[in-house]
Protein backbone atom coordinates (compact mmCIF):
# COMPACT_ATOMS: atom_id res chain seq x y z
CA UNK A 1 0.00 0.00 0.00
CA UNK A 2 3.02 2.18 0.58
CA UNK A 3 3.87 1.39 -3.02
CA UNK A 4 0.60 2.76 -4.38
CA UNK A 5 0.89 5.89 -2.30
CA UNK A 6 4.43 6.40 -3.57
CA UNK A 7 3.21 5.82 -7.09
CA UNK A 8 0.50 8.44 -6.62
CA UNK A 9 3.04 10.87 -5.22
CA UNK A 10 5.31 10.26 -8.15
CA UNK A 11 2.47 10.70 -10.63
CA UNK A 12 1.66 14.01 -9.01
CA UNK A 13 5.20 15.26 -8.92
CA UNK A 14 6.05 14.11 -12.40
CA UNK A 15 2.78 14.67 -14.14
CA UNK A 16 3.81 17.41 -16.40
CA UNK A 17 2.94 16.91 -20.00
CA UNK A 18 6.12 18.80 -20.80
CA UNK A 19 9.31 17.15 -19.55
CA UNK A 20 10.91 20.59 -19.61
CA UNK A 21 8.34 21.96 -17.22
CA UNK A 22 8.79 18.92 -15.04
CA UNK A 23 12.50 19.60 -14.81
CA UNK A 24 11.98 23.23 -14.01
CA UNK A 25 9.47 22.63 -11.27
CA UNK A 26 11.00 19.62 -9.62
CA UNK A 27 14.67 20.32 -9.83
CA UNK A 28 15.62 23.72 -11.09
CA UNK A 29 13.25 25.48 -8.70
CA UNK A 30 14.69 24.00 -5.51
CA UNK A 31 18.21 24.41 -6.85
CA UNK A 32 17.52 28.04 -7.67
CA UNK A 33 15.97 28.47 -4.23
CA UNK A 34 19.14 27.22 -2.62
CA UNK A 35 21.20 29.53 -4.79
CA UNK A 36 19.32 32.66 -3.94
CA UNK A 37 20.16 31.99 -0.32
CA UNK A 38 23.73 31.14 -1.16
CA UNK A 39 24.03 34.36 -3.11
CA UNK A 40 22.66 36.40 -0.25
CA UNK A 41 25.14 34.92 2.16
CA UNK A 42 27.86 35.32 -0.43
CA UNK A 43 27.22 39.04 -0.45
CA UNK A 44 27.01 39.18 3.33
CA UNK A 45 30.26 37.29 3.70
CA UNK A 46 32.00 39.44 1.13
CA UNK A 47 30.98 42.62 2.91
CA UNK A 48 32.00 41.09 6.20
CA UNK A 49 35.41 39.78 5.20
CA UNK A 50 36.34 41.63 2.04
CA UNK A 51 37.73 38.33 0.80
CA UNK A 52 37.12 38.00 -2.96
CA UNK A 53 38.01 34.32 -3.30
CA UNK A 54 35.03 32.96 -1.47
CA UNK A 55 35.07 29.58 -3.19
CA UNK A 56 38.07 28.77 -1.08
CA UNK A 57 36.61 30.23 2.08
CA UNK A 58 35.76 27.73 4.78
CA UNK A 59 32.76 29.73 5.86
CA UNK A 60 31.38 29.78 2.35
CA UNK A 61 31.83 26.04 1.90
CA UNK A 62 30.07 25.59 5.23
CA UNK A 63 26.96 27.48 4.24
CA UNK A 64 26.97 26.14 0.72
CA UNK A 65 26.79 22.55 1.87
CA UNK A 66 24.15 23.50 4.43
CA UNK A 67 22.00 25.09 1.76
CA UNK A 68 22.40 22.21 -0.67
CA UNK A 69 21.24 19.62 1.84
CA UNK A 70 18.53 21.87 3.18
CA UNK A 71 16.71 21.21 -0.10
CA UNK A 72 15.74 17.87 1.44
CA UNK A 73 14.33 19.49 4.50
CA UNK A 74 12.31 22.06 2.62
CA UNK A 75 10.89 19.76 -0.02
CA UNK A 76 10.11 16.75 2.17
CA UNK A 77 8.52 18.89 4.86
CA UNK A 78 6.45 20.72 2.32
CA UNK A 79 5.57 17.43 0.63
CA UNK A 80 4.26 15.92 3.86
CA UNK A 81 2.35 19.01 4.83
CA UNK A 82 0.73 19.34 1.46
CA UNK A 83 -0.63 15.77 1.30
CA UNK A 84 -3.51 16.45 3.65
CA UNK A 85 -4.15 19.93 2.33
CA UNK A 86 -4.31 18.90 -1.31
CA UNK A 87 -6.32 15.73 -0.73
CA UNK A 88 -8.72 17.75 1.33
CA UNK A 89 -9.18 20.94 -0.60
CA UNK A 90 -8.13 20.20 -4.12
CA UNK A 91 -8.85 16.55 -4.89
CA UNK A 92 -11.42 16.13 -2.12
CA UNK A 93 -10.41 12.53 -1.78
CA UNK A 94 -9.24 12.66 1.81
CA UNK A 95 -12.30 11.05 3.30
CA UNK A 96 -12.01 8.09 0.95
CA UNK A 97 -8.32 7.64 1.60
CA UNK A 98 -8.83 8.13 5.30
CA UNK A 99 -11.66 5.62 5.60
CA UNK A 100 -9.83 2.99 3.55
CA UNK A 101 -7.75 0.33 5.30
CA UNK A 102 -4.48 1.97 4.31
CA UNK A 103 -2.70 3.43 7.30
CA UNK A 104 -2.76 7.18 6.79
CA UNK A 105 0.68 7.50 8.29
CA UNK A 106 2.05 5.05 5.72
CA UNK A 107 0.15 6.87 3.03
CA UNK A 108 1.86 10.16 3.80
CA UNK A 109 5.31 8.61 3.83
CA UNK A 110 4.51 7.04 0.47
CA UNK A 111 3.31 10.29 -1.00
CA UNK A 112 6.45 12.05 0.20
CA UNK A 113 8.79 9.39 -1.23
CA UNK A 114 8.99 11.00 -4.64
CA UNK A 115 9.99 14.24 -2.97
CA UNK A 116 13.02 12.46 -1.51
CA UNK A 117 14.05 11.25 -4.93
CA UNK A 118 13.66 14.66 -6.53
CA UNK A 119 15.42 16.39 -3.65
CA UNK A 120 18.33 13.99 -4.09
CA UNK A 121 18.69 15.06 -7.69
CA UNK A 122 18.35 18.74 -6.83
CA UNK A 123 20.93 18.46 -4.06
CA UNK A 124 23.35 16.63 -6.34
CA UNK A 125 22.93 19.30 -9.00
CA UNK A 126 23.54 22.04 -6.47
CA UNK A 127 26.66 20.34 -5.14
CA UNK A 128 28.01 19.72 -8.63
CA UNK A 129 27.53 23.38 -9.45
CA UNK A 130 29.34 24.35 -6.27
CA UNK A 131 32.28 22.13 -7.09
CA UNK A 132 32.67 23.02 -10.73
CA UNK A 133 31.60 26.65 -10.88
CA UNK A 134 32.43 27.94 -7.41
CA UNK A 135 35.44 25.69 -6.79
CA UNK A 136 34.23 24.40 -3.49
CA UNK A 137 36.44 21.62 -2.18
CA UNK A 138 34.53 18.47 -1.47
CA UNK A 139 36.56 15.52 -0.35
CA UNK A 140 35.51 12.26 1.10
CA UNK A 141 37.61 9.18 1.57
CA UNK A 142 36.32 5.95 0.07
CA UNK A 143 36.10 4.53 3.57
CA UNK A 144 33.66 7.18 4.59
CA UNK A 145 31.15 6.43 1.85
CA UNK A 146 29.20 3.77 3.78
CA UNK A 147 29.07 6.08 6.78
CA UNK A 148 27.95 8.97 4.60
CA UNK A 149 25.16 6.84 3.15
CA UNK A 150 24.12 5.78 6.63
CA UNK A 151 24.01 9.41 7.74
CA UNK A 152 21.93 10.26 4.68
CA UNK A 153 19.44 7.52 5.48
CA UNK A 154 19.12 8.54 9.12
CA UNK A 155 18.84 12.18 8.10
CA UNK A 156 16.09 11.40 5.64
CA UNK A 157 14.22 9.33 8.21
CA UNK A 158 14.54 12.28 10.50
CA UNK A 159 13.20 14.74 7.94
CA UNK A 160 10.32 12.36 7.22
CA UNK A 161 9.59 12.11 10.94
CA UNK A 162 9.41 15.88 11.21
CA UNK A 163 7.29 15.92 8.05
CA UNK A 164 4.91 13.47 9.69
CA UNK A 165 4.63 15.75 12.71
CA UNK A 166 3.73 18.58 10.37
CA UNK A 167 1.24 16.40 8.50
CA UNK A 168 -0.31 15.47 11.83
CA UNK A 169 -0.72 19.12 12.69
CA UNK A 170 -2.23 19.86 9.32
CA UNK A 171 -5.14 17.55 10.19
CA UNK A 172 -6.26 20.38 12.40
CA UNK A 173 -5.41 23.37 10.26
CA UNK A 174 -7.15 24.95 7.33
CA UNK A 175 -5.71 25.63 3.94
CA UNK A 176 -4.63 29.17 4.66
CA UNK A 177 -2.42 27.99 7.49
CA UNK A 178 0.41 27.82 5.01
CA UNK A 179 2.46 29.62 7.61
CA UNK A 180 2.97 26.21 9.11
CA UNK A 181 4.45 24.85 5.90
CA UNK A 182 6.83 27.76 5.50
CA UNK A 183 7.39 28.77 9.09
CA UNK A 184 8.63 25.44 10.33
CA UNK A 185 11.23 24.92 7.59
CA UNK A 186 12.16 28.56 8.18
CA UNK A 187 12.73 27.80 11.82
CA UNK A 188 15.00 24.91 10.92
CA UNK A 189 16.77 27.18 8.52
CA UNK A 190 17.60 29.62 11.26
CA UNK A 191 18.39 27.29 14.12
CA UNK A 192 20.03 24.28 12.54
CA UNK A 193 23.24 25.83 11.35
CA UNK A 194 22.26 25.90 7.70
CA UNK A 195 23.53 29.28 6.74
CA UNK A 196 25.54 30.30 9.78
CA UNK A 197 27.02 28.20 12.55
CA UNK A 198 25.25 27.64 15.81
CA UNK A 199 27.91 29.73 17.56
CA UNK A 200 26.49 32.89 15.97
CA UNK A 201 23.14 32.41 17.71
CA UNK A 202 22.33 33.78 21.16
CA UNK A 203 22.40 31.25 23.98
CA UNK A 204 18.73 30.31 23.82
CA UNK A 205 18.97 29.98 20.03
CA UNK A 206 21.87 27.59 20.41
CA UNK A 207 19.81 25.49 22.79
CA UNK A 208 17.00 25.31 20.23
CA UNK A 209 19.50 24.29 17.57
CA UNK A 210 20.96 21.60 19.77
CA UNK A 211 17.53 20.11 20.29
CA UNK A 212 16.89 19.73 16.56
CA UNK A 213 18.19 16.68 14.70
CA UNK A 214 18.76 18.62 11.48
CA UNK A 215 21.61 20.43 13.22
CA UNK A 216 23.44 17.16 13.78
CA UNK A 217 22.61 15.85 10.36
CA UNK A 218 24.12 18.84 8.57
CA UNK A 219 27.12 18.82 10.88
CA UNK A 220 27.78 15.13 10.25
CA UNK A 221 27.49 15.65 6.50
CA UNK A 222 29.89 18.57 6.55
CA UNK A 223 32.44 16.63 8.53
CA UNK A 224 32.18 13.81 6.04
CA UNK A 225 32.36 15.74 2.78
CA UNK A 226 34.38 18.88 3.56
CA UNK A 227 38.13 18.78 4.08
CA UNK A 228 38.99 18.72 7.76
CA UNK A 229 41.26 21.75 7.35
CA UNK A 230 38.18 23.82 6.41
CA UNK A 231 36.00 22.35 9.13
CA UNK A 232 38.59 23.40 11.68
CA UNK A 233 38.38 27.04 10.56
CA UNK A 234 34.68 27.46 11.33
CA UNK A 235 33.55 27.87 14.89
CA UNK A 236 30.47 25.66 14.65
CA UNK A 237 29.62 25.50 18.31
CA UNK A 238 29.65 21.72 18.01
CA UNK A 239 33.39 21.09 17.93
CA UNK A 240 33.47 19.58 21.39
CA UNK A 241 31.77 16.49 19.95
CA UNK A 242 33.43 14.02 17.63
CA UNK A 243 31.67 12.57 14.59
CA UNK A 244 30.51 9.49 16.48
CA UNK A 245 28.97 11.75 19.12
CA UNK A 246 27.22 13.84 16.49
CA UNK A 247 25.80 10.74 14.80
CA UNK A 248 24.65 9.36 18.14
CA UNK A 249 22.80 12.61 18.84
CA UNK A 250 21.31 12.48 15.37
CA UNK A 251 20.03 8.97 16.02
CA UNK A 252 18.56 9.86 19.38
CA UNK A 253 16.82 13.00 18.17
CA UNK A 254 15.52 11.20 15.08
CA UNK A 255 14.04 8.44 17.23
CA UNK A 256 12.48 11.10 19.42
CA UNK A 257 10.85 12.82 16.45
CA UNK A 258 9.51 9.51 15.18
CA UNK A 259 7.88 8.84 18.51
CA UNK A 260 6.58 12.38 18.58
CA UNK A 261 5.14 12.03 15.09
CA UNK A 262 3.27 8.88 16.04
CA UNK A 263 1.86 10.48 19.17
CA UNK A 264 0.98 13.70 17.38
CA UNK A 265 -0.66 11.77 14.59
CA UNK A 266 -2.83 9.77 16.98
CA UNK A 267 -3.79 12.88 18.86
CA UNK A 268 -4.55 15.19 15.96
CA UNK A 269 -6.39 12.44 14.11
CA UNK A 270 -8.56 11.89 17.17
CA UNK A 271 -9.20 15.61 17.56
CA UNK A 272 -10.01 15.99 13.87
CA UNK A 273 -12.49 13.12 13.98
CA UNK A 274 -13.99 14.58 17.09
CA UNK A 275 -14.39 18.03 15.59
CA UNK A 276 -15.56 16.61 12.26
CA UNK A 277 -12.84 18.33 10.26
CA UNK A 278 -11.05 15.37 8.66
CA UNK A 279 -12.64 16.28 5.35
CA UNK A 280 -13.37 19.95 5.87
CA UNK A 281 -12.99 22.24 2.93
CA UNK A 282 -12.68 25.96 3.17
CA UNK A 283 -14.91 26.30 0.13
CA UNK A 284 -13.45 29.03 -1.93
Amino acid at each position, binding site marked *: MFKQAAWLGW*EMDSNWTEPGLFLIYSIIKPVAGAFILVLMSFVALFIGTGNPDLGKSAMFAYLFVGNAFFIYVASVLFGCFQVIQSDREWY*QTIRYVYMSPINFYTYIVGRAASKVLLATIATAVTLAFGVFALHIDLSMSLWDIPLFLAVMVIGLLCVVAIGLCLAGLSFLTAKHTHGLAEGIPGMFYLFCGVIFPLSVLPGWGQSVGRALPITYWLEAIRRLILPSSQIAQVTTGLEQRDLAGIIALLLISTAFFFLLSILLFRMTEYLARKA*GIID*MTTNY
Partner: protein
Amino acid sequence: MTYATETRDLTRIFKRKPKRHLLKRKSAKKNEKENGGPVTALDHVNLTIKEGELFGLLGPNGAGKTTLIKVLCTLLLPTSGSAYVAGFDVSKEVNQIRRKINMVSGGETSGYGLLTTRENIWMFSQFYGIPSKVAKERIDELMHTFGLYDKKNVKVRTLSTGERQKMNMIRGFVTDPEILFLDEPTLGLDVNASRTIREYIMNWVRKREHKTVLLTTHYMMEAEMMCDRVAIIDRGRILALDTPANLKRMIRKESTVQLEVDTLKSTAPIGGIKGIGNFSSKDDIAHGTTNLTIIVEDESAISDIMSAITAQGSRIRSMRKTDPTLEDVFISMVGKGLEE
Protein backbone atom coordinates in the same frame (compact mmCIF):
# COMPACT_ATOMS: atom_id res chain seq x y z
CA MET B 1 -26.49 -12.45 14.82
CA THR B 2 -24.65 -9.18 14.60
CA TYR B 3 -26.33 -6.40 12.74
CA ALA B 4 -24.72 -4.73 9.76
CA THR B 5 -24.89 -1.48 11.66
CA GLU B 6 -26.32 -0.57 14.99
CA THR B 7 -26.55 2.72 16.82
CA ARG B 8 -27.51 3.30 20.42
CA ASP B 9 -28.61 6.75 21.44
CA LEU B 10 -26.18 8.05 18.87
CA THR B 11 -25.88 11.80 19.20
CA ARG B 12 -23.68 14.16 17.27
CA ILE B 13 -23.50 17.82 18.08
CA PHE B 14 -21.53 20.30 16.00
CA LYS B 15 -20.19 23.33 17.77
CA ARG B 16 -21.34 25.67 15.04
CA LYS B 17 -22.68 25.65 11.54
CA PRO B 18 -20.04 25.38 8.86
CA LYS B 19 -19.10 28.73 7.38
CA ARG B 20 -20.25 29.05 3.85
CA HIS B 21 -17.61 30.99 2.03
CA LEU B 22 -19.61 30.58 -1.13
CA LEU B 23 -21.97 33.20 0.18
CA LYS B 24 -20.98 36.79 0.06
CA ARG B 25 -19.02 37.90 3.07
CA LYS B 26 -21.75 40.04 4.53
CA SER B 27 -24.45 37.44 4.40
CA ALA B 28 -22.02 34.82 5.63
CA LYS B 29 -21.51 36.92 8.72
CA LYS B 30 -25.20 37.35 9.17
CA ASN B 31 -25.75 33.63 8.74
CA GLU B 32 -23.17 32.87 11.32
CA LYS B 33 -24.91 35.09 13.79
CA GLU B 34 -28.30 33.64 13.07
CA ASN B 35 -27.20 30.05 13.25
CA GLY B 36 -24.52 30.59 15.81
CA GLY B 37 -25.34 27.98 18.41
CA PRO B 38 -24.48 24.31 18.41
CA VAL B 39 -26.30 22.08 15.93
CA THR B 40 -27.62 18.70 16.97
CA ALA B 41 -27.14 16.79 13.75
CA LEU B 42 -28.06 13.42 15.28
CA ASP B 43 -30.29 13.24 18.31
CA HIS B 44 -30.37 9.93 20.18
CA VAL B 45 -30.59 7.81 17.07
CA ASN B 46 -31.35 4.14 17.64
CA LEU B 47 -31.17 2.29 14.38
CA THR B 48 -30.32 -1.26 13.49
CA ILE B 49 -29.76 -2.37 9.96
CA LYS B 50 -29.75 -6.07 9.27
CA GLU B 51 -27.26 -7.89 7.15
CA GLY B 52 -28.52 -8.20 3.59
CA GLU B 53 -30.81 -5.21 3.77
CA LEU B 54 -31.12 -2.35 1.36
CA PHE B 55 -31.93 0.26 3.92
CA GLY B 56 -33.07 3.77 3.13
CA LEU B 57 -32.67 6.90 5.18
CA LEU B 58 -35.14 9.47 3.92
CA GLY B 59 -35.07 13.05 5.02
CA PRO B 60 -34.78 16.65 3.82
CA ASN B 61 -31.53 18.59 3.54
CA GLY B 62 -29.89 19.10 6.88
CA ALA B 63 -31.72 16.18 8.47
CA GLY B 64 -28.48 14.52 9.56
CA LYS B 65 -28.16 11.83 6.88
CA THR B 66 -24.59 12.61 5.90
CA THR B 67 -23.59 12.97 9.52
CA LEU B 68 -24.87 9.47 10.29
CA ILE B 69 -22.99 8.06 7.31
CA LYS B 70 -19.80 9.80 8.38
CA VAL B 71 -20.04 8.39 11.88
CA LEU B 72 -20.54 4.88 10.52
CA CYS B 73 -17.65 5.31 8.08
CA THR B 74 -15.23 6.21 10.89
CA LEU B 75 -14.84 9.78 9.68
CA LEU B 76 -16.57 11.38 12.59
CA LEU B 77 -16.78 10.51 16.27
CA PRO B 78 -20.12 10.46 18.10
CA THR B 79 -20.63 13.15 20.70
CA SER B 80 -22.42 10.60 22.84
CA GLY B 81 -24.00 7.20 22.41
CA SER B 82 -22.43 4.48 20.36
CA ALA B 83 -22.37 3.05 16.87
CA TYR B 84 -21.30 -0.36 15.62
CA VAL B 85 -20.52 -1.51 12.11
CA ALA B 86 -20.33 -5.26 11.53
CA GLY B 87 -20.24 -5.56 15.30
CA PHE B 88 -17.24 -3.25 15.74
CA ASP B 89 -17.25 0.00 17.63
CA VAL B 90 -16.71 3.05 15.38
CA SER B 91 -14.84 4.81 18.15
CA LYS B 92 -12.32 2.10 18.89
CA GLU B 93 -12.21 -0.59 16.24
CA VAL B 94 -11.75 1.40 13.07
CA ASN B 95 -9.32 -0.98 11.40
CA GLN B 96 -11.70 -3.90 11.53
CA ILE B 97 -14.50 -1.73 10.16
CA ARG B 98 -12.55 -0.13 7.33
CA ARG B 99 -11.82 -3.43 5.64
CA LYS B 100 -15.51 -4.21 5.40
CA ILE B 101 -17.01 -0.97 4.18
CA ASN B 102 -16.94 1.58 1.44
CA MET B 103 -18.78 4.80 0.84
CA VAL B 104 -19.84 6.90 -2.10
CA SER B 105 -21.34 10.29 -1.82
CA GLY B 106 -23.30 11.72 -4.71
CA GLY B 107 -23.15 15.26 -5.98
CA GLU B 108 -19.45 15.67 -5.38
CA THR B 109 -16.55 15.53 -7.74
CA SER B 110 -13.66 14.03 -5.81
CA GLY B 111 -10.83 12.33 -7.64
CA TYR B 112 -7.20 12.75 -8.60
CA GLY B 113 -7.56 14.86 -11.73
CA LEU B 114 -4.15 13.93 -13.03
CA LEU B 115 -4.80 10.19 -13.05
CA THR B 116 -6.91 8.42 -15.62
CA THR B 117 -10.34 7.21 -14.59
CA ARG B 118 -9.11 3.64 -14.44
CA GLU B 119 -5.94 4.49 -12.52
CA ASN B 120 -7.92 6.48 -10.01
CA ILE B 121 -10.29 3.62 -9.23
CA TRP B 122 -7.47 1.09 -9.33
CA MET B 123 -5.44 3.04 -6.81
CA PHE B 124 -8.25 3.08 -4.30
CA SER B 125 -8.81 -0.63 -4.81
CA GLN B 126 -5.16 -1.15 -3.91
CA PHE B 127 -5.66 0.65 -0.62
CA TYR B 128 -8.04 -2.20 0.16
CA GLY B 129 -5.55 -4.84 -0.80
CA ILE B 130 -7.57 -6.16 -3.75
CA PRO B 131 -5.22 -8.15 -6.03
CA SER B 132 -4.35 -5.87 -8.90
CA LYS B 133 -5.56 -8.23 -11.61
CA VAL B 134 -8.89 -8.85 -9.93
CA ALA B 135 -9.32 -5.12 -9.45
CA LYS B 136 -8.64 -4.39 -13.10
CA GLU B 137 -11.16 -6.97 -14.25
CA ARG B 138 -13.80 -5.60 -11.92
CA ILE B 139 -13.09 -2.05 -12.99
CA ASP B 140 -13.55 -2.90 -16.66
CA GLU B 141 -16.76 -4.75 -15.96
CA LEU B 142 -18.16 -1.95 -13.82
CA MET B 143 -17.14 0.65 -16.37
CA HIS B 144 -19.12 -1.22 -19.01
CA THR B 145 -22.13 -1.38 -16.71
CA PHE B 146 -22.09 2.30 -15.89
CA GLY B 147 -21.31 3.37 -19.44
CA LEU B 148 -17.92 4.80 -18.60
CA TYR B 149 -15.77 2.33 -20.48
CA ASP B 150 -14.88 4.70 -23.30
CA LYS B 151 -13.52 7.12 -20.68
CA LYS B 152 -11.28 4.63 -18.97
CA ASN B 153 -8.03 6.10 -20.19
CA VAL B 154 -9.12 9.70 -19.94
CA LYS B 155 -7.76 11.99 -17.23
CA VAL B 156 -10.20 12.46 -14.40
CA ARG B 157 -9.95 16.25 -14.64
CA THR B 158 -11.60 16.16 -18.06
CA LEU B 159 -14.64 14.19 -16.88
CA SER B 160 -18.02 15.84 -16.50
CA THR B 161 -19.64 15.96 -13.08
CA GLY B 162 -21.89 13.05 -13.92
CA GLU B 163 -18.99 10.97 -15.20
CA ARG B 164 -17.01 11.64 -12.06
CA GLN B 165 -19.97 10.55 -10.02
CA LYS B 166 -20.14 7.30 -11.95
CA MET B 167 -16.42 6.85 -11.43
CA ASN B 168 -16.89 7.26 -7.71
CA MET B 169 -19.76 4.81 -7.75
CA ILE B 170 -17.39 2.28 -9.31
CA ARG B 171 -14.79 3.14 -6.67
CA GLY B 172 -17.38 2.08 -4.10
CA PHE B 173 -18.32 -1.22 -5.71
CA VAL B 174 -14.86 -2.27 -6.83
CA THR B 175 -13.74 -3.23 -3.33
CA ASP B 176 -16.78 -5.49 -3.00
CA PRO B 177 -17.52 -4.22 0.54
CA GLU B 178 -19.75 -6.07 2.96
CA ILE B 179 -21.50 -2.86 3.80
CA LEU B 180 -21.78 -0.04 1.33
CA PHE B 181 -22.84 3.45 2.34
CA LEU B 182 -24.36 5.54 -0.40
CA ASP B 183 -25.03 9.16 0.43
CA GLU B 184 -27.57 10.53 -2.04
CA PRO B 185 -26.12 8.41 -4.85
CA THR B 186 -28.20 9.89 -7.65
CA LEU B 187 -28.01 13.53 -6.62
CA GLY B 188 -27.80 15.69 -9.69
CA LEU B 189 -27.61 12.83 -12.18
CA ASP B 190 -29.77 12.67 -15.27
CA VAL B 191 -32.70 10.27 -15.45
CA ASN B 192 -30.89 7.53 -17.36
CA ALA B 193 -27.78 7.52 -15.23
CA SER B 194 -29.92 7.53 -12.10
CA ARG B 195 -31.88 4.55 -13.30
CA THR B 196 -28.75 2.58 -14.17
CA ILE B 197 -27.30 3.26 -10.76
CA ARG B 198 -30.50 2.41 -8.90
CA GLU B 199 -30.87 -0.86 -10.74
CA TYR B 200 -27.28 -1.78 -10.17
CA ILE B 201 -27.56 -1.12 -6.46
CA MET B 202 -30.73 -3.19 -6.14
CA ASN B 203 -29.22 -6.10 -8.05
CA TRP B 204 -26.03 -5.90 -6.11
CA VAL B 205 -27.82 -6.35 -2.80
CA ARG B 206 -30.39 -8.85 -3.94
CA LYS B 207 -28.18 -11.14 -6.01
CA ARG B 208 -25.55 -11.62 -3.35
CA GLU B 209 -25.99 -12.78 0.16
CA HIS B 210 -24.67 -10.79 3.09
CA LYS B 211 -24.35 -7.50 1.23
CA THR B 212 -25.84 -4.53 2.98
CA VAL B 213 -26.49 -1.06 1.62
CA LEU B 214 -27.39 2.00 3.61
CA LEU B 215 -28.63 4.59 1.21
CA THR B 216 -29.66 8.13 2.05
CA THR B 217 -31.90 10.17 -0.13
CA HIS B 218 -34.29 13.04 -0.13
CA TYR B 219 -36.12 11.62 -3.13
CA MET B 220 -39.21 9.95 -1.80
CA MET B 221 -39.56 7.83 -4.91
CA GLU B 222 -36.05 6.44 -4.58
CA ALA B 223 -36.61 5.24 -1.04
CA GLU B 224 -40.02 3.83 -1.88
CA MET B 225 -38.92 2.00 -4.96
CA MET B 226 -35.58 0.62 -3.84
CA CYS B 227 -35.50 0.00 -0.15
CA ASP B 228 -36.51 -2.95 2.00
CA ARG B 229 -36.96 -0.67 4.97
CA VAL B 230 -36.96 3.07 5.29
CA ALA B 231 -36.25 5.32 8.25
CA ILE B 232 -37.60 8.82 8.09
CA ILE B 233 -35.25 11.33 9.64
CA ASP B 234 -35.67 15.01 10.37
CA ARG B 235 -33.54 17.31 12.49
CA GLY B 236 -31.44 14.44 13.67
CA ARG B 237 -34.28 12.30 14.90
CA ILE B 238 -35.68 9.08 13.48
CA LEU B 239 -39.40 9.69 13.20
CA ALA B 240 -40.52 6.37 11.75
CA LEU B 241 -39.00 3.15 10.54
CA ASP B 242 -40.69 0.42 8.55
CA THR B 243 -41.12 -1.04 5.10
CA PRO B 244 -42.36 1.51 2.58
CA ALA B 245 -45.72 -0.29 2.41
CA ASN B 246 -46.18 -0.25 6.17
CA LEU B 247 -45.17 3.38 6.40
CA LYS B 248 -47.81 4.29 3.89
CA ARG B 249 -50.32 2.14 5.73
CA MET B 250 -49.80 4.36 8.76
CA ILE B 251 -51.68 7.12 7.03
CA ARG B 252 -54.03 5.00 5.00
CA LYS B 253 -57.08 5.92 6.98
CA GLU B 254 -56.17 9.45 6.11
CA SER B 255 -56.13 10.61 2.56
CA THR B 256 -54.01 13.04 0.72
CA VAL B 257 -55.47 15.91 -1.20
CA GLN B 258 -53.37 17.85 -3.64
CA LEU B 259 -54.55 21.26 -4.72
CA GLU B 260 -53.22 23.75 -7.18
CA VAL B 261 -54.60 27.20 -6.43
CA ASP B 262 -53.82 30.84 -7.25
CA THR B 263 -50.97 31.97 -5.05
CA LEU B 264 -52.23 32.16 -1.50
CA LYS B 265 -51.55 35.18 0.65
CA SER B 266 -51.55 33.07 3.76
CA THR B 267 -51.83 29.40 4.53
CA ALA B 268 -52.71 30.07 8.16
CA PRO B 269 -56.48 29.66 7.71
CA ILE B 270 -55.91 26.15 6.37
CA GLY B 271 -53.93 25.16 9.40
CA GLY B 272 -56.92 26.09 11.53
CA ILE B 273 -59.36 23.76 9.82
CA LYS B 274 -60.65 20.87 11.89
CA GLY B 275 -60.18 17.38 10.49
CA ILE B 276 -56.90 17.90 8.68
CA GLY B 277 -53.49 16.69 9.69
CA ASN B 278 -50.31 18.31 8.60
CA PHE B 279 -49.94 19.95 5.22
CA SER B 280 -47.25 21.37 3.03
CA SER B 281 -47.43 24.28 0.65
CA LYS B 282 -45.09 25.33 -2.10
CA ASP B 283 -45.42 28.49 -4.16
CA ASP B 284 -44.84 28.14 -7.86
CA ILE B 285 -43.84 31.64 -8.89
CA ALA B 286 -43.66 30.87 -12.59
CA HIS B 287 -47.29 29.84 -12.73
CA GLY B 288 -48.55 32.13 -10.01
CA THR B 289 -49.88 29.23 -8.03
CA THR B 290 -49.54 27.54 -4.70
CA ASN B 291 -49.37 23.76 -4.54
CA LEU B 292 -50.89 22.35 -1.40
CA THR B 293 -50.56 18.80 -0.14
CA ILE B 294 -52.93 18.26 2.73
CA ILE B 295 -53.31 15.15 4.84
CA VAL B 296 -57.04 14.92 5.44
CA GLU B 297 -58.18 12.92 8.43
CA ASP B 298 -61.84 13.55 7.92
CA GLU B 299 -63.26 13.88 4.42
CA SER B 300 -65.75 16.50 5.50
CA ALA B 301 -62.82 18.88 5.96
CA ILE B 302 -62.42 19.12 2.19
CA SER B 303 -65.26 21.59 1.77
CA ASP B 304 -63.79 23.70 4.59
CA ILE B 305 -60.46 23.73 2.79
CA MET B 306 -62.11 24.88 -0.39
CA SER B 307 -63.98 27.68 1.29
CA ALA B 308 -60.85 28.80 3.17
CA ILE B 309 -59.13 29.15 -0.19
CA THR B 310 -61.91 30.91 -2.02
CA ALA B 311 -62.39 33.23 0.95
CA GLN B 312 -58.94 34.64 0.12
CA GLY B 313 -60.16 35.31 -3.42
CA SER B 314 -57.99 32.52 -4.71
CA ARG B 315 -59.21 30.22 -7.46
CA ILE B 316 -58.83 26.47 -7.24
CA ARG B 317 -57.22 25.30 -10.45
CA SER B 318 -57.13 21.62 -9.73
CA MET B 319 -57.69 19.20 -6.95
CA ARG B 320 -57.12 15.50 -6.60
CA LYS B 321 -57.08 12.83 -4.00
CA THR B 322 -53.99 10.65 -4.23
CA ASP B 323 -52.69 7.45 -2.77
CA PRO B 324 -50.29 8.17 0.01
CA THR B 325 -46.60 8.32 -0.84
CA LEU B 326 -43.67 8.36 1.54
CA GLU B 327 -43.59 12.10 1.11
CA ASP B 328 -47.12 12.24 2.48
CA VAL B 329 -45.98 10.19 5.43
CA PHE B 330 -43.24 12.72 5.95
CA ILE B 331 -45.63 15.63 5.65
CA SER B 332 -48.07 14.06 8.08
CA MET B 333 -45.30 13.73 10.63
CA VAL B 334 -43.28 16.88 10.13
CA GLY B 335 -45.65 19.36 8.56
CA LYS B 336 -43.45 20.19 5.61
CA GLY B 337 -42.34 18.55 2.40
CA LEU B 338 -39.02 16.82 1.79
CA GLU B 339 -37.72 19.48 -0.54
CA GLU B 340 -38.76 22.55 1.40
